[in-house]
């Protein structure tokens, strides 16, 4: 129900942020997340940063599998 795209914050100004995903840049709303800084990674959905994420890499699944099994 919700295509999300991990993206890197390039610029931040008030409640707006410019994010970059694989070379595509777009201004989005960042007002639902506090304390964002350039360089942070966010999950973007429908023009809004919905969550701050550690990075855009996928190593997390490794750890989860290891810790649970």
């Amino acid at each position, binding site marked *: 129900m919700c295509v999300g795209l991990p993206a890197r914050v390039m610029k931040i100004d008030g409640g707006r942020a410019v994010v970059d995903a694989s070379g595509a840049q777009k201004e989005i709303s960042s007002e*639902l997340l506090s304390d964002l800084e350039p360089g942070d990674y966010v999950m973007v959905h429908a023009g809004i940063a919905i969550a701050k994420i550690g990075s855009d890499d996928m190593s997390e699944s490794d750890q989860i599998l290891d810790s649970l099994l």
Partner: protein
Amino acid sequence: MGNAKEKALEIIRAYDGPHIRMMEVCGTHTHELFRLGVRKILPPQVELISGPGCPVCVTGPGFIDEAVWLALEKGAAICTFGDLVRVPGSEDSLASARAKGAKVKVVYSPPDAADYAADHPDEEVVFLSVGFETTTPSSCVALKSAQESGLKNFSLLVSNKTMPQAYKMLKGSADIFLYPGHVNAIAGNEVCKSLVSQGVSGVVTGFTAAEILTAIAISLKKYGEGKPFFVNAYPRVVKDEGNPQAQAIVDKYMEACDSEWRGLGLIPGSGMKLRDEYAAFDARKKFQVPPMKGRTNPACRCGDVLQGRCRPVDCPLFGKACTPLKPVGACMVSGEGACSAYYQYNE
């Protein structure tokens, strides 16, 4: 690094337990499962059922009728996510209304629709606000900016929905639920955790191959242990508390209401509507939209498909009267709809 996929595949391939039904609630999961060909590598006793988590699929024809009416009768410029353009209403889809002169603009996001309204003061802009917990905050952000900048030509036709009541209704449809990662990113894990006490098991996960396979592998392992469970397999995005700021903005502008789901019928408390104080931004009130029930083809079995009661191929219209090029039911419209996915991928 990077071997979660292989490890998870190994666990999945080696599964020799009992028959298990897993429902992916989220339409984006359905889409990715088909795109990756996950069903092809599952052992035969693991069944994946596509749930109702595609906002396009569960949006009834009445909503499309309202949008078409606003466009053709009131001359409103309709801004919408691309997903809705081809969804059939009772008579017209937005695409066929466009051929009759309706102004239909596809936007990337609700704030983009508000920006469009600001740039076109001579047009009455209506944004079609659909979607679940993930998408609703975006509509509210757009509304907030419209309100703050005093936009008079922008309103929302709201049909947003929420998942908790639907989960309860679907309880018996599957043994394990793959919960939608981005819904929980907003709403948090509380609801999913509380369902464990009612015997409902599930894993919340992301959308990459590694994340999806990991969630399936965890499900198979945990199922064998025999106790209901909830696992957050997407902690890089999903926090237990969700996104409180997103929850707050939705609460400010919207409140719960009953909502009609295509196929599932009326689910009390499963919808969202604008609070009365924002009536000026409510397209239904602003344009006095008459009540529209919408008509569906009685032979269409989208409802049963959405509840996992039948497969798309069991519907008499599937692949005959109903194809992706000429969809009858919503499950055939959206690329992530179960019928469309079955048709496209020749399942």
